[in-house]
């Protein structure tokens, strides 16, 4: 690691002041990606602004048809939440599949979403449920938030405060994990929301999470895994690496989507 200064603000306002919109300063959430990045000297921030002691950024609440999860809420808390399990069981299930116990005890939903790793799980839930990302400045629809690999609509210094999820009629997440890292080689989140069926894919796209509109159209005719048979997702634009070729990932999207539709019931 290169040298950096460390700040531990107690409030959102203080965190904003410490960061000051300076691109060389970084917020520290769970650190599950940022700390390895610092160790590998892939990033050289002058300052880290630790968000861990800001109480207003953590916590889960359910009001009406909306589940709100504070940005600093740990994956383990979402996985163990009776409220989330009751309102959106697929979301609690997804959180339980992230990494391993040590990661789930430190990693946060805000950090995962802001990082937008192309193989992370949460982006699929946000896009699949049509969630809203709330920042200190504005609210951003998931459809507008994710803008490519590790790229989001966040401006320098803009801080995610919470994510709000509309409660769907039904939803499920199925993933084919890399057996070592537990990152998604392909993960598919399906849901029936007020706006109709949604199908979101993580782990596969070279530009990160994306929706499969052909599958969504097919599911408008009825919620059945059989309706997805024969819908081929092109391998163009999918990741190809030592774990799986683009063609294999394209195949897995179909398999995981059908399993997810069946699991949602």
């Amino acid at each position: 690691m290169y040298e950096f200064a460390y700040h531990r603000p107690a409030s959102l306002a203080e965190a904003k002041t410490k960061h000051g919109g300076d691109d060389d300063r970084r917020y520290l959430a769970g650190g599950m990606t940022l700390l390895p990045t610092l160790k590998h000297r892939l990033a050289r921030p002058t300052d880290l602004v630790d968000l861990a002691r800001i109480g207003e950024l953590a916590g889960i609440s359910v009001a009406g048809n909306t589940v709100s999860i504070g940005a600093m809420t740990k994956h383990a808390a979402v996985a163990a939440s009776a409220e989330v399990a009751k309102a959106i069981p697929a979301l609690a299930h997804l959180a339980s599949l992230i990494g391993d116990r040590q990661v789930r005890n430190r990693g946060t939903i805000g950090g995962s979403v802001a990082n937008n790793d192309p193989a992370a799980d949460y982006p699929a839930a946000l896009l699949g449920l049509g969630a809203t990302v709330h920042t200190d400045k504005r609210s951003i629809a998931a459809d507008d938030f994710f803008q490519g690999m590790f790229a989001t609509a966040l401006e320098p210094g803009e801080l995610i405060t919470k994510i709000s999820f509309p409660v769907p009629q039904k939803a499920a997440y199925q993933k084919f994990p890399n057996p070592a890292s537990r990152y998604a080689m392909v993960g598919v989140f399906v849901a029936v929301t007020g706006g109709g069926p949604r199908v979101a894919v993580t782990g596969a796209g070279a530009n990160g999470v994306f929706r499969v509109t052909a599958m969504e159209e097919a599911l408008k005719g009825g919620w059945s895994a059989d309706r997805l048979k024969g819908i081929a997702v092109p391998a163009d634009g999918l990741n190809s690496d030592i774990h799986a070729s683009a063609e294999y990932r394209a195949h897995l999207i179909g398999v995981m989507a059908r399993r997810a539709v069946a699991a949602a019931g």
Partner: protein
Amino acid sequence: MAKHHVTTTINGESVEFLCDTRQTLLDVLRDELELTGSKEGCASGDCGACSVLVDGRLVCSCLVLGVEAEGKSIETIEGMAKGDKLHPLQQKFLEHAALQCGICTPGFLVAAKALLDSNPNPTETEVRYWLAGNLCRCTGYDKIIRAVLDAAAEMRGETHG
């Protein structure tokens, strides 16, 4: 750059230390406090050899900054045995030969203790799932899983055949 003064509780005792912002909690434990039981394997949160509890939660100490430990309660492998009396998990690891080189062992023991503290009667699947963040490259996992299940049975007061 000025060092940070950090006040923590480690294995039940109040501990203060000075650290550079770049030192991880693992660096502090090993290099500043001479608690070398926690090991550095991968240094990137994959292997679990540096597992400790922070406020009762199992984490990789290689991905926690030393300065983040301010005000926290930390439990390490050094706090597991009571004097000369091994924790049942440690005893069962010996009896089942659940270790060879031993680098991963402190992490496995801390992780397994965290499991049994929250779930005294886990299934084999639950043990395997819980320990997914701890890697062993020589013993293999079967002996480790058997040792944890046997220790759990003993701690529940059951005789185990």
